[in-house]
């Protein structure tokens, strides 16, 4: 059972929830940029939430399924089709052997996740299947997918196999979809444009009053230098009150650092473990996943929130994910 890559798209990689425990030896966390969408895709096919899936970026791939496969697509809208028919998002879809699925370019958001029941049959490296592109570690041969790659899928659970069989029993031509879907978690244009919530960064107080004002009141744009490592922004120049001598120290996902030229950089999934630029703000985890769905030239605004609010939104989101999981399990069992 496998997926054959007919066209790889712009950047299609295998990612799970990330590689933890090895930053201390210089190994990045990597993992899905939008982890919530990845986890939803896995839940919808009966996988462990941390299973690896395909992360699809800006221009999608074309994929052939060599066997009947239960899949789910979440995240950015790439208008995927099979035999000219649109494949819906946010629900289990049973795809028949021989079907070819074509993702278009991204219409809304930036990244989609394609999960298959059973996940991908790939050895974990340092506890994770995520692709660490720059070091050539993990994923499929440590690299982005290429034409003619054959990705073996793992064995689906009996539960996933049962869902696949019951969907196909309806007499599908090339695919069959569940009649229900998860609506609440789907993102919209409005949700993408909402301000990104941040807490004050480690060196916030060293920035000039005008820098702080500009950072929160003006609009920035995502520059063309926006990848899995980080997003460089364009907009008002930010300056520290006086030049800061910072000894390199550890940073986090969503850290917003400001190099001497004054243009902020948001650090994303493939960020290095240690850096030495002043940190003006720290994106809350929930909104870092939203940044992953922004693409070059998209506008971005920031809103300062308290540490308490940041913690609460992390916890609320996890409760939300638990509730969605319970709802999906109930639906799948019917």
């Amino acid at each position, binding site marked *: 059972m496998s997926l054959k890559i007919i066209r790889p798209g712009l950047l299609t990689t295998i990612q799970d929830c990330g590689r933890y425990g090895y930053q201390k030896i210089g190994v990045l966390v990597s993992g899905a940029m939008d982890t919530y969408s990845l986890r939803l895709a896995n839940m919808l096919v009966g996988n462990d939430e941390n299973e690896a899936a395909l992360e699809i970026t800006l221009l999608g791939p074309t994929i052939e399924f060599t066997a009947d496969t239960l899949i789910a697509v979440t995240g950015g809208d790439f208008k995927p089709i099979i035999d000219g028919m649109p494949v819906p998002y946010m629900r289990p879809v049973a795809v028949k052997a021989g079907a070819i699925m074509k993702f278009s370019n991204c219409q809304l958001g930036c990244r989609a996740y394609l999960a298959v029941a059973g996940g991908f049959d790939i050895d974990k490296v340092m506890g994770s299947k995520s692709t660490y592109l720059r070091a050539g570690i993990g994923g499929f041969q440590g690299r982005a997918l290429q034409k003619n790659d054959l990705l073996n899928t793992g064995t689906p659970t009996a539960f996933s196999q049962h869902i696949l069989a019951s969907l196909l029993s309806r007499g599908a031509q090339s695919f069959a979809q569940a009649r229900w879907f998860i609506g609440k978690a789907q993102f919209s244009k409005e949700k993408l444009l909402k301000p990104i919530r941040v807490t004050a960064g480690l060196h916030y107080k060293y920035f000039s009053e005008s820098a702080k004002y500009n950072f929160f009141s003006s609009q920035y744009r995502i520059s063309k230098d926006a990848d899995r490592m980080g997003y460089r922004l364009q907009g008002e120049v930010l300056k520290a009150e006086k030049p800061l001598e910072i000894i390199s120290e550890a940073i*986090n996902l969503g850290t917003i650092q400001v190099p001497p030229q004054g243009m902020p950089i948001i650090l994303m999934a493939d960020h290095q473990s240690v850096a030495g630029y002043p940190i003006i703000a720290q994106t809350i985890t929930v909104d870092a996943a939203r940044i992953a769905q922004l693409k070059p030239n998209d506008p971005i605004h920031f809103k300062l929130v308290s540490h308490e609010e940041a913690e609460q939104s992390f916890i609320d989101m996890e409760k939300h994910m638990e509730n969605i999981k319970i709802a999906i399990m109930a639906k799948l069992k019917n």
Partner: protein
Amino acid sequence: MDKNSYTIKPLGETALLVTFGNEINPQIHKKSQNLAMYIDKHPFPGFLEYVISYTSVAVYYNPFIAKKSYTNNKNKTVFAIISNIIDEYIEKAAKLPAAMPKTIEIPVCYGGECGPDIEYVAKYHNLSTDEVINIHTQPDYLVYMIGFCPGFPYMGGMDERIATPRRSEPRLSIPAGSIGIAGKQTGGYPISTPGGWQLIGRTPVDLFLPNADDPSLLHAGDIVKFIPISPQEYKKMEDDKL
């Protein structure tokens, strides 16, 4: 340890940074190592990982899991709860006998093809290449942190008599195992990468093996000694790896 001798600050809602000072020296670094060692032995609920750097330790955690585990602290933030745990750990770690650092000897073939910049470094300081090798192999280097790329050590302790600025034109590809100098720093490249360091030698030892149980030869807190070897010894060690 006196609570005024370190600070704990949030690094977002999923990590905190414990800073023991603002100077790069072995005494301050030792405090980071002691805390890290204590966390290794006593990981708290929600703990994910830590990163040691020059003067601090970042501790990463999942606030949702931590919050669920500390139900009798309902009104406290997760940051406050974990900060208290770290205070306790630092105090307890200070009472334990300090761990003996691991000393790792790294064989290096200096000069020639392995170290194409050694003559430049020698000339820059008016030294002979043998003197450069002598000066470079004398110290016990302390690994302050691993970063930049997998297994790459940031080491302290190099003699300033051989401190040399980076190359004005970086190389497009530096072979794995290269040992170099950049300003007052010395280090080794675990994987082939572009870079501007002055290359003075190369080790046949693997600094990083992704599939090994412990992928990195070096860790923060280790002591490194460079041992000069001949090109013949270098070749033999390379051949033995095959």
